[in-house]
């Protein structure tokens, strides 16, 4: 009897850690999930316990195998996709984290990042990493840990303390931990540290010096699809073949392998990534040039990333703060109770406007209110805000991605793809078809694909492409004159958000 072979993906996310198993045709055959605690020690601080996350990994992988009725020797490979930029340091001899991990949502490094700019370091950082210094990235968080955690800096300099983003931490644990665990990271996660030369794909000495980071503590940078080592615990003997940051994993899982292909993941926020091929784009609009993925010895494939801070979270605000609906899907019922937005627009600049507008002092507005406007119109305006914000990122991307690269269709995934009205509206305003694949778990699928590719479970990218099947397609259907008029209204609404916060 032929033994069933599957690939496992660990999706180490912001609120939970999951293990999903995929078969050869890319279908999910099992999933297991455990949430972890969010720690908020001070306003603006958000931490995770890396030891708790590791314990969750130890549980979800066997649980997924049990659910599928499989054993570790059914696993061809294991891949990891992770929340990006979350930073942990640990002792290499005890395997214990020195402090809780500082997550990507944490804003404690704001002042340090401003300082980098005032010290005149912005240009160097932009030249080497491809992006201006911002609080997103892991490097400043690592610096904070070195400055504030007793023993961290000395330990790092003596080689006793190691740094990693979540995939590094998990690979090190899986491959033995204190007992000769592999201390590695992948290029996509490394590209979000503000420490890596995005062209040479190496740690950059000037940046290490600028941020004052001891090189001895850094993991080795490896491609995304390559064998990092074999598990020595949890599922002993199974090769770890893939690791990517979550949004890069979604790009890979959506099989955006050709320049110009793009995906957008719609969750609480949205992340749109476009493959730009061998060309590292520069973005005057402030989109983020990043490494898309690297397959083993092949040259890197670059991507351009545009993120939208508030999409699904605006629906949550509508539900939890305004209490106009009880559950998120009800917004579509409310929105379809009226024919249009009734002249009402909502711009959710809750903490300013980012790419491509860059107005940190902006705050949200609801405009166009008349006595005619009902909660149905407000519901429409909430959904339309996600459509127009997508349009802004797409417009910027079409300009910045480079010659010949324009978006011709958009692959979507994430929870908001359940909203038919929204998906149709997005297609209408970006004026290209929007399509949803069968497997909505694009992040996990991408990690599995990278791992399976590394061990030869899947032969090549063409096979993966063949696994992509369209489950739904939304064709643009809005009258162009109407679209332009609505776009102009949206722009006028956005202008009304500017300069709301006065310098104190």
């Amino acid at each position, binding site marked *: 009897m032929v033994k069933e072979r599957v690939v496992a993906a660990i999706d180490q996310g912001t609120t939970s850690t999951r293990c999903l198993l995929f078969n050869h045709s890319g279908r999910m055959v099992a999933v297991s999930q455990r949430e972890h605690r969010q720690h908020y020690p001070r306003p603006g601080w958000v931490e995770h316990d890396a030891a708790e996350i590791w314990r969750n990994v130890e549980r979800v992988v066997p649980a997924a195998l049990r659910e599928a009725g499989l054993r570790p020797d059914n696993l061809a490979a294991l891949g990891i996709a992770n929340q990006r930029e979350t930073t942990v340091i640990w002792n290499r001899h005890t395997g214990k984290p020195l402090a809780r991990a500082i997550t990507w949502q944490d804003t404690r490094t704001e002042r340090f990042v401003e300082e980098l700019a005032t010290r005149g370091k912005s240009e160097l950082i932009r030249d080497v990493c491809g992006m201006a210094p911002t609080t997103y990235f892991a490097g400043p968080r690592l610096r904070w840990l070195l400055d504030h955690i007793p023993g961290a800096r000395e330990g790092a300099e003596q080689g006793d303390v190691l740094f990693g983003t979540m995939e590094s931490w998990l690979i090190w644990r899986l491959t033995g931990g204190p007992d000769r665990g592999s201390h590695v990271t992948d290029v996509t996660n490394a590209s979000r540290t503000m420490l890596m030369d995005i062209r040479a794909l190496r740690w950059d000495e000037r940046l290490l010096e600028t941020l004052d980071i001891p090189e001895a503590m850094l993991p080795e940078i490896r491609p995304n699809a390559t064998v990092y080592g074999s598990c020595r615990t949890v599922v002993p003997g199974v090769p770890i073949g893939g690791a990517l940051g979550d949004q890069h994993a979604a790009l890979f899982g959506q099989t955006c392998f050709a320049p110009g292909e793009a995906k957008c993941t719609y969750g609480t926020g949205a992340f749109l990534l476009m493959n730009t091929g061998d060309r590292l784009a520069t973005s005057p609009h402030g989109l983020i040039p990043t490494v898309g993925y690297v397959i083993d010895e092949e040259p890197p494939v670059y991507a351009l990333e545009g993120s939208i801070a508030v999409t699904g979270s605006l629906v949550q605000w509508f539900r939890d703060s305004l209490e106009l609906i009880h559950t998120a*899907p009800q917004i579509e019922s409310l929105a379809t109770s009226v024919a249009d937005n009734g002249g009402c627009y909502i711009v959710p600049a809750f903490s300013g406007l980012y790419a491509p507008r860059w107005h940190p002092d902006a705050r949200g507005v609801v405009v166009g209110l008349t006595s005619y406007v009902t909660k149905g119109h407000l519901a429409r305006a909430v959904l339309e805000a996600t459509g127009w914000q997508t349009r802004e990122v797409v417009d910027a991307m079409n300009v910045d991605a480079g010659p010949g690269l324009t978006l011709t269709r958009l692959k979507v995934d994430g929870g908001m793809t359940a909203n038919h009205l929204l998906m149709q509206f997005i297609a209408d305003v970006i004026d290209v078809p929007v399509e949803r694949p069968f497997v*909505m778990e694009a992040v996990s699928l991408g990690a599995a694909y990278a791992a399976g590719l590394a061990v030869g479970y899947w032969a090549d990218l063409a096979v993966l492409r063949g696994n992509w099947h369209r*489950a*739904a397609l939304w064709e643009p259907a809005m009258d162009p004159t109407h679209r332009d008029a609505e776009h102009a209204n949206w722009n006028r609404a956005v202008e009304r958000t500017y300069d709301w916060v006065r310098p104190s």
Partner: protein
Amino acid sequence: MPGRIQSIERAVAVLRLLDTADQPLELHEIADTLGLVRTTTHGIVSTLRELGLVEQIHDHGPLHGHYHVAEAARLFGRGGPDPHELRSLAMNWADSLAAQTALSVTLGVPTRVDVLVVHHVFRPDGSSQRLAVGQRRPLHASALGKALLAFASGGVRRLQGTELTAYTSRTIRTHQALTEALADVRHAGLATEDAELEADRGSIAAPVQGPGGLAVAAVAIHGFRDELFDRRGQPYADLADATKRTAKALGREVRRLW
């Protein structure tokens, strides 16, 4: 869920059925739709009548002895699951059914006059397809419609006084034939439509049953006739089972939330 009381669930299902059926129903129609034995149904209906929530017609006219919901109880009939919440719940199940059967999948909810398609998953073969979300399907000539007539609307009488539009030569045209077809649907827990709406096409549907057995939606697979039915016109067993299993799984989720 700690001990929901089944008789209350059933009583609420009776009220919702009478309220949404749009016309008074006979005892056996209530029993058949909810899959209850007559004596149980009689007990529930009598209790509701004594409590003033259900009324029985005593006019010696054609509806003599039928039941309808009392004005005081009208509120109870509303507030089934929101169709968009249903879609949200159904996404993974529907994707999985389409992947498993290699056919397209729809989810439909009953309206007063027909079926509204609230979710549609393409067949996974890359062929050119258009989303049917928002479209309507006739009750008597679609598998979704028949499943809902049988398990949600109190049967064929919902269509009394309306002419049954013939879409193809195979469309059911008489109320008598539809009554017989619905009896089969209830017996099998499965509705079929074999080139009754569109030549060469067909579908197989199963009810998504909420509390008390009242269907809140139906899930269907669609394809060419020869993909769905054998030479005797029977649905292929694996397809029928997959459709039923999906509808049952979705029903469990619905009952967990409502």
